[in-house]
């Protein structure tokens, strides 16, 4: 669906989004982190945990969405993607 074009990010980074309790823990709604080439989401998380303090202690049950779809650790993240941290949901 060409999401990275819509987002208009430089193609050498990913955008991290934080919601609800994750937003409070991160202390911000959004972070841009450099990413030179495609990487598995699990691997990206390992890297990020070393560089972003907010990601060292995610609350239990947090899901990660890549380009607005919940993804597992094997999902490939490409420069320009949007990676969102979603605590357990409580709509309705």
């Amino acid at each position, binding site marked *: 669906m060409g999401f990275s074009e819509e987002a208009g990010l430089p193609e050498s980074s990913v955008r991290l989004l934080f919601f*609800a309790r994750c937003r409070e823990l991160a202390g911000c709604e959004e972070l841009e982190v450099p990413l030179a080439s495609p990487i598995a989401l699990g691997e990206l998380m390992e890297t990020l945990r070393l560089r972003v303090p907010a990601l060292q202690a995610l609350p239990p049950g947090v*899901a990660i969405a890549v380009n607005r779809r*919940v993804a597992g650790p094997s999902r490939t993240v490409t420069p320009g993607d949007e990676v969102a941290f979603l605590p357990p*949901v409580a709509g309705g």
Partner: protein
Amino acid sequence: MPPDHAADRNRESEGRSSASLVRDPIDPAAVLARVGGPRDGAVVLFLGTVRDHHDGRAVRGLTYEAYEEMATAVLHELVQGTLEGLREGSVHAVHRLGPLGIGEVAVAVAVSSPHRGPAFEAARLLMEELKRRLPVWKHEYYAEGDSDWVAGVPLVPDSRPGSGK
């Protein structure tokens, strides 16, 4: 009143579903107006309203936060999936965001169908799915003055088409 022609027109317009996230109060009459038709004999409307208590604590209001782009996409997929399950009829869903007071409508789901069984089933299943899949969070404000995020349901990896791209 030519019912045979009306029936033909309705058959053509089968497959109606719609969804939205809103920040203004939800009007049940407007929600009902989005469903129904001359071939439908049943309409089920569900309203989720803000309760004045939760887990034994007095609640004075709450705020809904959403990952709006994703929530909009998920809600559209849910109503579309509900309609496909129904085969005939129409489906509408709307979720409110921002601050809400006690008694206000947080979510509304309306389903119309030729018969009542499928309409009840579809409305209920849509609500279950919505609660499991919509990236929306509820922050409650308690009578005592404190506030907290409501414990929710962990999202599970997505099985929608395109999620493994």
